[in-house]
Structures are given as structure tokens and as C-alpha cells.
């Protein structure tokens, strides 16, 4: 059984896939060879691979970066608000207002320096997920075909491929500009107390969230509906072929049927493990960006709370709006990740169910 597994692994191109997939998982899994991960999954311990991810290191580094930013901004706020209060109470020629604007602009420079690299990082992570899926899906489809699920592939592959390309186009041409525009407008709208432009950025954020939600729902619904139909068709087809082969061919029929069963069973194990590795690698790709975004989101909320006693109300509002923009980024990243993980899982479950008929 071990020899069979190793032999099939080479023939089906899984070795090449693992070599190529290493470049995606370098950050999270370290320099660990994916082969050992693969062996673990075939044997059934998945928890071992979570030990290799350096959770603490990633979390600590991101938190320290965010804390540095908070401390810097707090310094600016405290100095400037104290100065402004003194100047206002002295009633000297509106110098307080100028101090307020200088403070605002310095804060805006710090905020933009923090936001733009994170946006680029998120988009890059999403593009890496999509190119990884481009690599994973042909292999998965080959494995599914080798287990005899023909109807499943013909119905599910177009959905997966089309949704992948659509997500790539959609995010790069719609979501990124909307995110940037909403961020810039929310920065500007708190500049003057009288001119309020908040609702524009609110609309843009809602549009992004709604369209991503609709995409996710449609994708999942389509795949689950198809999985109900195709699994039973494939299972029945497989069972009838096996019965026909063992019944009609005189001498070697039964032996042939059983050996085909063994081969298909082992290919099934390989397919499941390849699918699980795909899921783990997608999770590893999104781990570090999402922790970064969560840290910055919380840090801006804390900043809003801490600076409320001393700073102007417009500045507190600014911080709250910026933290909502970070929330949108997190939402984009998570929805894409969950969409692909669910896609792979549903495909795996369907093909497993069709083998239950034997």
C-alpha cells in the first residue's frame, strides 16, 4: 500500500506541485519541506502541521509595529492639543487654529504612510492566493478524474475557473479604487468641521461589502447544488461499471474489479491530502496580512479612545473612520480566502460522497 501511494504520487505530478507550492508557503511554514507535511496528512495527523507555524513570532512583530505607530501619534496629539488650548485661552490672533491644522496634517501623513503599504500587501496576498489556485486546480481536477468522477469535473471545473478569474479582475479594478477613494474622502471630510463628505465613503464601503457577500453566496450555493446532483450520478455510474466488469468478464472479472477499487481508493487518499494541503497553504498565505490588518484596526480604535479627552472631536472622528476602512480590508481578504477554502472543501466532499456508494 505504501509503494502504491509513492508510485502514484510521482506519476500524477504531485511532486512537482509540492515543489512549486513551496514558494507560497515560505513565510508561514518556514523552510519546512512540504513533503513531510504531506506524509503527515496522509497518515492523518493534521495538528502536527500547525505546530510548525510560528504564530507567536508573527503576532508579536505586528503588534510591536502597531504600538510604535500609536505611540508616535499620541505624542503628536498631546503636544499639539496642549499648545492649542493654551493659545486659545490666551486669545492671541487665532494661532490656535493654525496649530490645529498643522496637527491634522502631520497625523494624516502618518496615517497614509501606514495605510497604503497595507493595501498593497493585501492585494498582493489575494493575487498570490489566486495564482496558487491556478496551480492547484488542474492537479485537483486530474486527481478527481482518476477516481472516476467524470460528471463532477465537467460541472464544477467551469465554476471554479470562472470565479477565480472573475475575482482577480473584480478586486483589481473595482475594489482597490473604491477602497482608496473611500479612505481619501474620509480623511478629507474631517478636515473642515462644516463640510461633511462622510456618506460618500460610507456608500462605497457598503457597495464593496454587499457585492463580496453576493459573490460568496452565489459561489457556495452553486457548488453545493451541483454537489448534490453529481455525487449520486457518479456513484451510481461507478457501481454499475464495477458490477458489469465483475459479472460479465468470465475469469478475471472479480479480481479486476477489486484491484480497480484499490487503485481508486488510494488515488482518493492522495486527492484528499492534496486538497487539505491546498487549504493549509491558502490559510498560511493569508495569515500574516490578516494579523497585520487586525493589529492596525485595533490600534486605531484604541487611539480614538485614548485621545478623546485631550484632542478635538474631529480628530477622534478621523480615527474611528480610518479604523472602519481597515475593517473593509479585512473583510475583503477574509471573504476571498473563505470562498476558495469552501470551494476546495465542497469539491473534496462531493467526490468523497460518490465513493460511498461502493
Amino acid at each position: 500500500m505504501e509503494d502504491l501511494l509513492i508510485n502514484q504520487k510521482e506519476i500524477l505530478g504531485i511532486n512537482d506541485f509540492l515543489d512549486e507550492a513551496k514558494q507560497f508557503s515560505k513565510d508561514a511554514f518556514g523552510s519546512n519541506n512540504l513533503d513531510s507535511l504531506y506524509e503527515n496528512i496522509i497518515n492523518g495527523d493534521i495538528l502536527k502541521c500547525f505546530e510548525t507555524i510560528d504564530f507567536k513570532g508573527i503576532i508579536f512583530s505586528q503588534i510591536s509595529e502597531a504600538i510604535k505607530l500609536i505611540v508616535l501619534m499620541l505624542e503628536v496629539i498631546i503636544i499639539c492639543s496642549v499648545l492649542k488650548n493654551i493659545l486659545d485661552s490666551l486669545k492671541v490672533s487665532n494661532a490656535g487654529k493654525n496649530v490645529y491644522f498643522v496637527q491634522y496634517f502631520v497625523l494624516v501623513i502618518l496615517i497614509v504612510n501606514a495605510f497604503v503599504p497595507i493595501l498593497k500587501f493585501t492585494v498582493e496576498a489575494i493575487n498570490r492566493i489566486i495564482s496558487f489556485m491556478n496551480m492547484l486546480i488542474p492537479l485537483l481536477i486530474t486527481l478527481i478524474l482518476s477516481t472516476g468522477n467524470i460528471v463532477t469535473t465537467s460541472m464544477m471545473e467551469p465554476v471554479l475557473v470562472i470565479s477565480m478569474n472573475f475575482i482577480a479582475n473584480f478586486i483589481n479594478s473595482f475594489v482597490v479604487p473604491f477602497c482608496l477613494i473611500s479612505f481619501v474622502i474620509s480623511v478629507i471630510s474631517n478636515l473642515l468641521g462644516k463640510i461633511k463628505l462622510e456618506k460618500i465613503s460610507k456608500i462605497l464601503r457598503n457597495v464593496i461589502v454587499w457585492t463580496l457577500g453576493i459573490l460568496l453566496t452565489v459561489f457556495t450555493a452553486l457548488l453545493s447544488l451541483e454537489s448534490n446532483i453529481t455525487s449520486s450520478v457518479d456513484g451510481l455510474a461507478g457501481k454499475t461499471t464495477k458490477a458489469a466488469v465483475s459479472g460479465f468478464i468470465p475469469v478475471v472479472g472479480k479480481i479486476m474489479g477489486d484491484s480497480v477499487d484499490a487503485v481508486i481508493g488510494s488515488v482518493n487518499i492522495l486527492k484528499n491530502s492534496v486538497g487539505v494541503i491546498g487549504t493549509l497553504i491558502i490559510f498560511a498565505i493569508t495569515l500574516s496580512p490578516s494579523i497585520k490588518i487586525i493589529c492596525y484596526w485595533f490600534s486605531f480604535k484604541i487611539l480614538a479612545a485614548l485621545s478623546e479627552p485631550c484632542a478635538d472631536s474631529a480628530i477622534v472622528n478621523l480615527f474611528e473612520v480610518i479604523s472602519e476602512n481597515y475593517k473593509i480590508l479585512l473583510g475583503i481578504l477574509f471573504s476571498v480566502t473563505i470562498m476558495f477554502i469552501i470551494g476546495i472543501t465542497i469539491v473534496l466532499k462531493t467526490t468523497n460522497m460518490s465513493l460511498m456508494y461502493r
Partner: protein
Amino acid sequence: MENLNNWCESLIISVILVLLIELLVENNKNKKYIQVITGIFIMFVTLNPFIELLNNNDFDTDFLKFEKVSAKPYEENELFENVYIDYTLERIKNVLDSYNLNVLDLDFKLDESKENLEKIEVIIKKDMAKESEDFVSEEKVKNLIKEELDITEDVLVITYE
């Protein structure tokens, strides 16, 4: 998409301008009136695209066009090369078919910088019967291929097998 970007840019620039103007007009007698005018200015900048939409009777769907971005698969140069070789082979075969010549294979060689063509080798099946009407000279074959592919003669090499 471009319309949205332009609109946002003009909106932001107008807000900053209004801010500068308000900073300049402190404690002036006419401060209130200047504020009215700047408010109207920002309102016009905000509503500009919608006024244009109302004036145009036919909507142009430019705002729906966006650049296509595809996540490239991780290796596609080899695919392009194979497709290109197949395509040129088809063209040469079409040209030489009318002379009853059987083209077997095509070989491209690029020089070291991978930019210029060094040699194209066309392998043609040798005619068994060399009758005078069927026999096509090498010169003629070279001319035909040269015309079809638009290349110079020195990169072309014809071998008979």
C-alpha cells in the same frame, strides 16, 4: 472608473482650496458672504457629473469598461513557443502544398539574447521520382518561404530527408 477618479480628485482639491481661503479670511467683515460662495462652489463640484448626465441624452458606457487583469499561470512561455512553432509550420505547409512537397518539421534557433532569429531549418521529404515538372528547386522553395514569412534568406536552411 476614470470619471470617478477625476470627480474625487476635483472634490478633494476644491476642499483644500476652500480650507486655504477660510484660513486667509479670518475676522473679516465679509467672512459670512465668502463662506456662502465657497459652499456653493463645493456643491457645484460635487454635482458636476450628474448635471452632465442630465444634459447628455445618450449615455456612454465608458464607465463600465475597466482594464482586464488576469492572474497569470506560473509558466506560459513554453506554451507560446509551441503555439508559434505550430502556426508557422501550418503557414509553410500551406504554401508548399501546391507544389506537392511534404514538410516534415520546423526548427527555430534563437541567438543568445533570445531576441533575434538565428536560423530556421525546414525539413522536407525527399522526392523519390525526380521528374522535371515535379522537381522544385531549392531556390524556389526558399523564395516561397521568404515571401510568406517575410524574412531574409540567410537565416533559412532547407534540408531534405
